[in-house]
């Protein structure tokens, strides 16, 4: 091992990255951009759902019922529609996400003690969103029915309205969300750090190495006495460093402007992020040794990172809810472990005691990739 040779390669790499405008932005601007784009493009929050109402009854009672939906902060009232015919194109065009149809005789039926029927049309193209909307509609309808019943009871039994309500609902459920009290986007932000660190370092590393293969500059290494280990350390360390710096920048953005809570230890987070950066840059390294053109390297990287990130990382759905095959896949990629780690540190204040297993998995992963890089890199090649 010649330290001077490793330093020569690392500093050359650093000069190239900082001087090439395209490469510089790929290294430092793109990760930040990704974070911003995902932050504002991605939302688990279902709010302001466009709402239309068809009121065939047109009585005080039906307006009162409709007003419960219109005034809800979850819905964005777009207006009354004249009939169901009008709703079709509005729902199909996405202008309305939910429609409430109140039939004629709504008030009369209620007054007569007959069951009144109301229809809710929900855009079901996004199942989870549709489920959430259905939940809102059911809750509002339930509240309206309860109110109606309480009024009846209070009138007929001569008790106060609040008394009637208590009697009608003997068991009351109190829900408290832990770690993220408002069930807002807090839990998304640490996950985004994972997404960006999973996508950007492999791309940067793979392109950085493969472009030398494409230009022929890699022959300077092949034909020199640089050893495999020296090459890997010298060429690869700037990319780990850059990815690590990015992790810190993303952390600052998360806890600063994005207002995410950070309840765990910073030092533990730094250590985990460094290992994860080595993991994902390592994916880029292995790709770069297998691909011979920049285009194929980019395609490889995107397939290897985007798909796992969106499905098997715990970004959109918990790994526990995947089927058995999916869970196995999830355990084979490093994203899942890091998701657990960031969620644990940011929101749950967890530390080494709880998360050491995940960190160990990442360490194993990083070492395996380095080893693969070492054995795949050949200075005397067959083609």
């Amino acid at each position, binding site marked *: 091992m*010649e330290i*001077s*040779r490793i*330093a*020569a*390669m690392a500093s*050359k790499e650093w*000069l*190239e990255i900082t*001087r*090439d405008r395209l490469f510089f932005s790929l290294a430092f601007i793109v990760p930040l951009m990704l974070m911003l784009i995902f932050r504002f493009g991605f939302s688990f929050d279902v709010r302001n759902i466009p709402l239309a109402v068809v009121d065939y009854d047109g009585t005080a009672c039906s307006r009162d019922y409709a007003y419960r939906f219109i005034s809800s902060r979850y819905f964005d009232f777009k207006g009354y529609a004249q009939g169901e015919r009008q709703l079709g194109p509005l729902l199909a065009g996405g202008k309305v996400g939910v429609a409430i149809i109140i039939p004629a005789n709504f008030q009369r039926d209620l007054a007569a003690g007959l069951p009144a029927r109301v229809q809710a049309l929900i855009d079901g193209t996004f199942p989870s969103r549709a489920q959430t909307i259905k939940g809102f509609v059911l809750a509002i309808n339930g509240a309206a029915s309860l109110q109606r019943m309480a009024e009846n009871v209070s009138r007929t039994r001569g008790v106060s309205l609040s008394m009637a309500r208590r009697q009608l609902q003997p068991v009351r459920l109190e829900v408290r969300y832990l770690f993220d009290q408002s069930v807002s986007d807090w839990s998304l932000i640490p996950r985004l750090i994972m997404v960006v660190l999973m996508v950007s370092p492999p791309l940067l590393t793979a392109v950085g190495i493969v472009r030398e293969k494409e*230009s*022929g*500059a890699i*022959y*300077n*290494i*092949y*034909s*020199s*006495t*640089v050893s495999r280990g020296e090459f890997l350390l010298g060429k690869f360390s700037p990319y780990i460093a850059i990815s690590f710096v990015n992790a810190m920048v993303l952390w600052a953005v998360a806890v600063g402007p994005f207002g995410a809570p950070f309840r765990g230890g910073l030092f533990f987070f730094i250590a985990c992020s460094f290992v994860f950066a080595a993991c994902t840059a390592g994916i880029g390294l292995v790709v770069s040794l297998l691909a011979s053109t920049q285009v194929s390297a980019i395609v490889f990287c995107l397939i290897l990172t985007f798909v796992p990130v969106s499905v098997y990382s715990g970004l959109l759905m918990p790994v526990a809810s995947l089927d058995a095959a999916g869970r196995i896949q999830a355990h084979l990629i490093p994203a899942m472990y890091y998701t657990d780690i960031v969620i644990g540190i940011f929101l749950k204040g967890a530390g080494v005691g709880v998360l050491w297993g995940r960190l160990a998995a990442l360490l194993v992963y990083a070492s395996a990739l380095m080893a693969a890089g070492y054995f795949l890199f*050949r*200075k*005397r*090649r*067959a*083609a």
Partner: protein
Amino acid sequence: MGKSPVVKGMDPVISVREFTKDYKSVRAVRGVSFDVMPGEIYGLIGPDGAGKSSLLKAAAGVLSYNGGQIRVFGGIVCSERAAERIKPRIGFMPQGLGLNLYPELSVEENIDFFARLMLVSRAALAERKERLLAITRLERFRQRRVRHLSGGMRQKLGLACTLIHEPELLILDEPTTGVDPVSRRDFWAILAELLQGGRTALISTSYMDEASRFYRMSMLYEGRIIAGGEPSDVLKTVPGSIVSLRCDDPERAAGRLKAVFRQAAVFGREVRVFAKGASPDEAAARVSGALSGLDVKDIRCSEPELEDVFIAIMQEKGFLQTEGPAMPPVPRGEQAARRAISSGIAIEARNLVRDFGSFRAVDNVSFQVRQGEIFGLLGANGAGKTTVIKMLTGIMPPTSGMGWVAGADMRRAGREIRENIGYMSQFFSLYNDLTVAENIRLYAGIYGLSARRARSRAEWILQMAGLRGYESSLAGRMPVGMRQRLALGCSLVHSPAILFLDEPTSGVDPVGRRHFWDILFTLANREGVAILVTTHYMLEAGHCGRLALMHAGRIIADAPPRDLRLAVQEKAGPVLELEVEDPFRALELIKGAGLTGAALWGRRIHILSRDPELALSRSRRALLPPGLKILGYSVRPPDTEDVFVYHVLAMEGREKAA
């Protein structure tokens, strides 16, 4: 040559025995053997795909091989471990002009990086860097980033970086491809200087005319050595004389000559015959005899060049069965050129300028191409040739200046122009996953040919390009020469009157190139097609009816090649070639005697002089005191490269004076 430059009894630096290399199922090199002795410049000459790069890489220890053996410095290179042992003593420069350099780093940073990679001590680096920068004349540019260097400067920097650890053996893969002739000469001079002190070099090239730069060489074709030895000996393997003549009906003359001599080719109005085994007088007499009754002028005899010998050997070894594709006549009503352009001027460029930011790629270029003329644009990579073509074909707007193609203004009549022209780029623009027939059909569809016409044109193209029987072969799987002719055919599918060819013959072997030129001459002579062709092959440029030399965006001379040569010969004189003992010392002595234009060519010395007799006697006198003998000499007219270099130097001289 009198004395072998190679000292007998010494161990070779590189010894290659029965070397074989496969890429998957393709055998790229088939049992090649040769030795490179200490202190010599050994050349590997051949077209793309001949196996040169495989051999060089294997010798440099960066490529494994399938059979045979390579010994470097006595050790067998057969594993990564064995290869590591020889690497400190080798300098390897891969193919591609300065592509192994780091474009974002400055000249000096590049040299420093290579030095640190090879563990050169600080003190040694400081001293060597100054010396190398001085020899390559890059001192003034040490802070400049490589991306802003010209091709010639990159090439010299590449050489400096390769030499920074003072390797005993230099392995250079096509170091001169695409470099302008001035830089090319410079390169060889610098290399000669740097190799002093017993260094050995193994160098590949695809330029046949560079053979004389080598002490010894091997000529490669499709993975085999087809000839080897000292360049002069290789020339002697097929003895004979070249007879060239001018004739009003060159095709008829060539037809008769081919029956007698087999190797006869038409270059415009000129016919060139290789009379094997004949002395010059005999050859001239036999040629005159064969052509009795035809109007023949200017019969000249010369020694065969390496390209002639290459073709002769290929014929002998049976690599060439056919005499090349035969050009079928074009059915009536389809002859594009007969829709004659009234003025007779097919292409005109007037004061064309194109800037890219602050860089002027094309600088005030003007020329005319007549109907039926082959007009050559000769220049290095980056001289501005492709930009000129892009402007004339309406693909790129000029910064200023005008251009007309087939009488239509290039700035307005884009569509009209495209219907009248055929365009073939250096990348052939074929669809590699389509078959030959499908490619032709596709182009016929693009130009909106009727089904009937498309069929008749396809027939014509297959015949013209000699591709009959290959209709259902995939374009990507065919050899370069065939792909090139298919691309030409596709660009001719709509019978255009004007043809733009952008470096159409890069990397094609001499035989393929000659076939290609046969087609071009027929198109021009018989169909009256105007052809604008760009090239960086000096030999090929000589075939054009008219030649414009392009350098740094400007046209520095424009005339028929013969006139260009004669003009330079008149102004600067012919070339005196000296064969001497100890050429390095001899060159210094000759330069010291005031003949500053003297340059080293392999082991010979070239002097451009108006009075070769005087130059010869002055050289003799200069070599007398140390007792160096002149073993032989000859005087020959300047060739296209001499012409190019003369004009560039003259231009630079004028600019310095101004």
